[in-house]
Every structure is written in C-alpha cells, then in structure tokens.
C-alpha cells in the first residue's frame, strides 16, 4: 500500500471530533472504499502497541487513548466521560436500545411506571436518545431511538453489537 495514502487516512481520522466512516474517507479522498478499509485495517494493527489505539465506533473510526492507560490519563484529566445516570435512566436507555423504535408509553409500561418523560428528556439532552418519527397509531406518539453518540459512549460499532440475552446470561423463554 502507498504509505502516503495510509498516512492521509490517519490524518483524517485524527482531525475529526467524532468517528469517521469509511464511506466518508473514501469520498473525501476520492478513493475506493476497499482501499480505505485496507488502510484502516493496517492502521489498527500499527496502533495496537501504542498509547493511542484506533477504535471502531458508531459506524466509523476514532483515535482514543488505549484503555490500558486509563488510570494514568484519568490522573491528568480528573474526569472521564462517564455518564451520571440513575438506575431508572439506565433501564430506560436499555429499553430504547434493545427495542427501538419505541414510544414513551411503551417504555413506561415495561418499567411499570406512569411516565418516563423526564428521564427521556434527560437522555435526549445528553444526546443518547433522539426522536425518530411518530408511531402510526391513535395520538401518533413519538418514537425514540438511540443516537450515534450512544454507540460511541458504549463502545459499539452498531446496534448489532449489543450483547444478546444469551450472552448476558438470561434465558430467553
């Protein structure tokens, strides 16, 4: 592979503030997607022993510090990107993540409470959840989905990577 091409891909990913997709890189560089994919694969390998690794997140790629050095980096940064969410908020997020698109009423029913609207608003403000249209039933309630930022903050490339119930260890009946 052309060393400069790989370096350009590296530069693009480094300069972005959020994960960049192979499609986007290919478009910018007017290059073949397969070529970009190969460059990304090589970069990933190159970075394995480094303090910075290349992560597959939210449909794209992003440079982040290696998880191995978390304690030391935290010492310098004072805080990581941890969300301070209540148990109820995590349950609500789990329902949206695993059962999307879903309405506010459906979430409330699953949690056995009357309303989850304030939790949903909070999750929206944190950009973890977004409104994705309306359900075609009486009242046309809004449907909620997770966002790319959700995938990023939970270390996922796509929703397909959400662990299944078998993987978690709950028996599906």
């Amino acid at each position, binding site marked *: 592979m052309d060393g400069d091409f790989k370096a350009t891909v590296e530069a693009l990913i480094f300069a972005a503030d959020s994960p960049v997709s192979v499609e986007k890189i290919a478009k910018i560089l007017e290059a073949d997607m397969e070529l970009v994919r190969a460059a990304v694969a090589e970069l990933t390998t190159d970075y394995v022993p480094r303090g910075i690794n290349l992560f597959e997140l939210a449909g794209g790629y992003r440079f982040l510090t290696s998880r191995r050095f978390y304690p030391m980096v935290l010492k310098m940064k004072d*805080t990581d*990107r*941890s969300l301070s969410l209540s148990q109820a908020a995590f349950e609500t*997020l*789990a*329902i949206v993540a695993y059962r999307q698109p879903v309405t506010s009423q459906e979430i409330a029913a699953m949690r056995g409470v009357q309303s989850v609207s304030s939790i949903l608003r909070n999750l929206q403000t944190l950009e973890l959840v977004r409104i994705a249209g309306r359900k075609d039933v009486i009242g046309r309630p809004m449907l909620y989905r997770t966002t790319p930022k959700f995938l*990023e*903050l939970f*270390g996922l490339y796509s929703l397909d990577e959400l662990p299944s119930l078998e993987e978690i*260890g709950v028996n599906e009946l």
Partner: protein
Amino acid sequence: MMDFSPAFDLELQLEGFNGPLDLLLHLVRKQKMAISDIAIAPITEQYAEYLKRMEELNLDIAGDYFVMASTLMLMKAKSLIPREKESFEEMREDLIFQLEEYEKIVAQAAELQKLHREAVRSFPRVYKEKIEKAEREFKVGENAIFLLVEHYARVIERRKALRPILIKPKPYTMKDVLSLLFGVFRKRKSTRFSSLTHQRERGFVVYLFVSVLELVREGSLKVTQTDTFSEIILQRRGVFTEEKQQQLIARFE
C-alpha cells in the same frame, strides 16, 4: 406474613427500588420462587406491608407503587371469587409476562452499564471535561443566538441586583432646610426657587421642594409658576414668628 426480624434488609433496600416492578421482583426472589410460580395472595400482602413500612418512615413513595398495590389487591380479590377465575388467570399471566420482561431489562441495563464503564476507559483527543455534566441546561439549538442574548441579559440583571446600593447620610436635615427658608424670608417677602437651589445637589433640592409644599399647605407660603418648568416664585403670606418656626420644624421630626 413477612419476616420483620432485624435481619430483614428493609433499611438497605428502601432507597434502592427503581419502581414497583423492581420491588415485586425483589419480593419474588426473596421467596426463592420462579416468576412463573408467583403466588399472588402472599406477594400482595408483602407488597402492602412494604409500602406501609415506607410510609411509617415518612418516605416519599411514588404514585406508581400504589397503582401496582391496587392491581395486586384486585387480583387477590378476583382469586377468591370462583366466577372471576378466568379474569384472574389472565391478569396473573400478564403480570408474569411483565415481570419476566422487566427482568430482561434489568439485565440489559446492567450490561449497558458495563459496556459504558469499559468504553470510557479511553479518552478522545479533546472533550468537554466537566462542562458536559454541569452545564447540561445550557443546551442550544437553532435559536442559539436568542438564548445566548437571554442568558447574557440574565447575567447582567443578576450582577445589577448584586451590586450594593450605597446610602450616604445626608449632610443636612429637614430642619436645616427649613431654617434656611426662614432666614431668607426674614429679610425679604418673595424669592425665586432657583435662587435657593443654585449649586445645590439633588437631595437638597428635594428636601427644599418638600418643605415648600408643606409651607404652602399650611398657608404661610404662596407659590406661582406661569408655565411648566418655568421659574417658581415663592411669596411669604405672613411673618414666621419664633413660635411658628418651632411648630413647623416639629412637624418634620
């Protein structure tokens, strides 16, 4: 009945429930029952007992808990009436389904927490450190500029409100102002208001004006002004005797 011996974990659990289903699941697990084997009557009693204990401790109980309590009680009532058997079985099946679904949600929520904890172990090049959490409310969209102006105005207002107002003691009293007036009218019968206020500060002028009004009301001064903002002419209507002066001064004290 429920075991309320000291070993009971009430104290630890009170704050910990995330809703009625969470509490119900806890009660089922305590019985070491499978969800599908849930016995409605004893669970209803235990659930109600829990709420009662929470009330006794003056804990705020969300309405959601009471909705579940009434559902359970309705089920228990139905279970005792033979012709309601079918309806009862249906409700019980629904509850079992709801609990089983909820159990999955709890597991999935725990899994998400695990994923998140692991994901935040790596840091991006830059990120909005603590601001992300603390400034949550300052989230702007398309109308960003208006919000910005609004917030700016609010900050300015707050600053204004915080700025202390200095109250300087006046170097003169009403008595001083009156004495001055009396002095003027001892020598002459009339004077222009402006001749008395010349080079005086606003506080003094106000004091003077108030004294003039009082003297007019009382009948010892006559005031004429031909036009708005034109000169005010003050005319004495009688003599300010020593006695009368004391009387007027006393009125302002």
